[in-house]
């Protein structure tokens, strides 16, 4: 159902909820459109009038700095009017339901919701319930998906490596709790990466992870061999409900990326991280700040990719 909901009758993007169900051609189009937005940040006037007169509401039911800021900047650079709401501090804490919040905002003539929520499927639910002229973008829902993060990662990879078909990509760390990892795996497989390898302790991998189309390794040293792109994940301490790991220092010893371990990957391998970084837990500072790291490039690219997705979802709004 998700795929039908995300595209309008002409096959164009309407909501952006998940990578799942989106064709390769559409993902490539998003990357191409984002390319055209990259230069705008360098202009004296960092704005284009594409979404002038549109109102975008950032609904953040869960804390986030980077994602919310880049969504705000992206909307501003498209000349949209943006309202950012941290819902934990608003009416929901007084007992208003999610649907009532949405209905009230709809009554204020908004055109787009950007939603982050701790419950998987929240953005999908809002997209189903909201008025037909409104587009919904998923900025992270529970452990399900974080598709704009995955797309900015794909954009960064393509900028540096050009072609996906030859690439071996390792996703390392807490796959179990990571919505980012799920979206990354789907995007890499859709775009035709040669191999997607997940490297993690057994306790931090979901059951039947192979069914996502990945190879599995439980050993960082062995797993990094022949790798072109290293995608680190944050150890999500706040989501750890049971004792899945002996200790953080033990984790760093086995799965932390150090300069020494990085040498096992291909010499031109790039190191990525969606942030925020736990230095000394999943990645050593020398690697995070080192020459192979593209972590800050990812942040810059987050603006262009979000501009592209917002602009594409808002076009042809008349078509349902």
């Amino acid at each position, binding site marked *: 159902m998700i795929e039908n909901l995300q595209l309008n009758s002409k096959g164009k993007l309407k909501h952006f909820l998940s990578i799942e169900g989106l064709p390769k051609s559409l993902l490539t*189009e998003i990357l191409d459109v984002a390319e*055209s937005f990259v230069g705008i940040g360098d*202009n004296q006037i960092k704005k284009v009038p594409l979404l002038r007169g549109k109102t975008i509401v950032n609904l953040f039911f869960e804390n986030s700095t980077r994602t919310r800021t880049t969504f705000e900047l992206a909307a501003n650079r498209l000349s949209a009017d943006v309202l950012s709401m941290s819902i934990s501090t608003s009416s929901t804490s007084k007992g208003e339901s999610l649907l009532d919040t949405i209905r009230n905002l709809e009554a204020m003539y908004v055109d787009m919701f950007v939603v982050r929520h701790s419950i998987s499927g929240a953005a999908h639910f809002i997209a189903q319930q909201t008025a037909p002229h409104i587009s919904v973008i998923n900025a992270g829902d529970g452990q399900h998906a974080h598709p704009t993060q995955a797309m900015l990662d794909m954009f960064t990879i393509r900028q540096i490596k050009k072609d996906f078909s030859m690439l071996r990509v390792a996703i390392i760390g807490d796959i179990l709790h990571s919505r980012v990892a799920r979206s990354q795996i789907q995007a890499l497989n859709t775009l035709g990466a040669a191999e997607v390898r997940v490297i993690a302790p057994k306790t931090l991998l979901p059951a039947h992870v192979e069914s996502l189309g990945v190879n599995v390794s439980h050993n960082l040293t062995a797993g990094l061999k022949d790798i072109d792109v290293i995608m680190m994940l944050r150890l999500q301490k706040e989501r750890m409900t049971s004792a899945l790991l002996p200790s953080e220092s033990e984790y760093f010893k086995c799965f932390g990326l150090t300069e020494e371990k990085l040498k096992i990957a291909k010499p031109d391998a790039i190191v990525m991280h969606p942030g925020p970084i736990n230095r000394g837990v999943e990645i050593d500072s020398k690697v995070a700040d080192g020459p192979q790291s593209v972590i800050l490039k990812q942040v810059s690219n987050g603006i262009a990719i979000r501009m592209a997705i917002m602009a594409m979802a808002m076009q042809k709004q008349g078509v349902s």
Partner: protein
Amino acid sequence: MLEIHDLLNKLEDGLKRIIVERQLTNPLMIGIRTGGVWIAEQMHQRLNIIEPLGLLDISFYRDDFSQIGVNPNVKPSQLPPQIEGRDIILIDDVFYTGRTIRAALNEIFDYGRPNQVVLAVLIERDGRQIPLCPDCVGTHITLSAGQLIKLTGPEPLAIQLQTIDAVA
């Protein structure tokens, strides 16, 4: 009837005249992608303008975005940082409804406030929808309904007259 070299010559003569009449000093030439850039390259060379040609891609400034959406092949505009106070020669291939020029002016003014802008086009055809007109043209033509005029290039530059039926 539309010989490209004749039109380019006429446009060059017109521009030379207008540079004197309007007292353009150290003009900045800007071509509108794609066809306008090809014409502008020719004029830039013929008029011996030293400063590099500015390139304008108006896709983000179009007024039909909600109907046609984003073009994934947009290239960033390349304009010098200093537009403020400049004399600008804006060049396009075909002047038709006027909407492209409206978008181009909006974009230029986002970079700064020029002293004056002169508009030069190779071909002005009928069908204007906005109260703008070129200062300098290679030729004027009137087309019948369903006819389109298109520039192909950059090498060789040529003008094509198409009818909608033939295109479809």
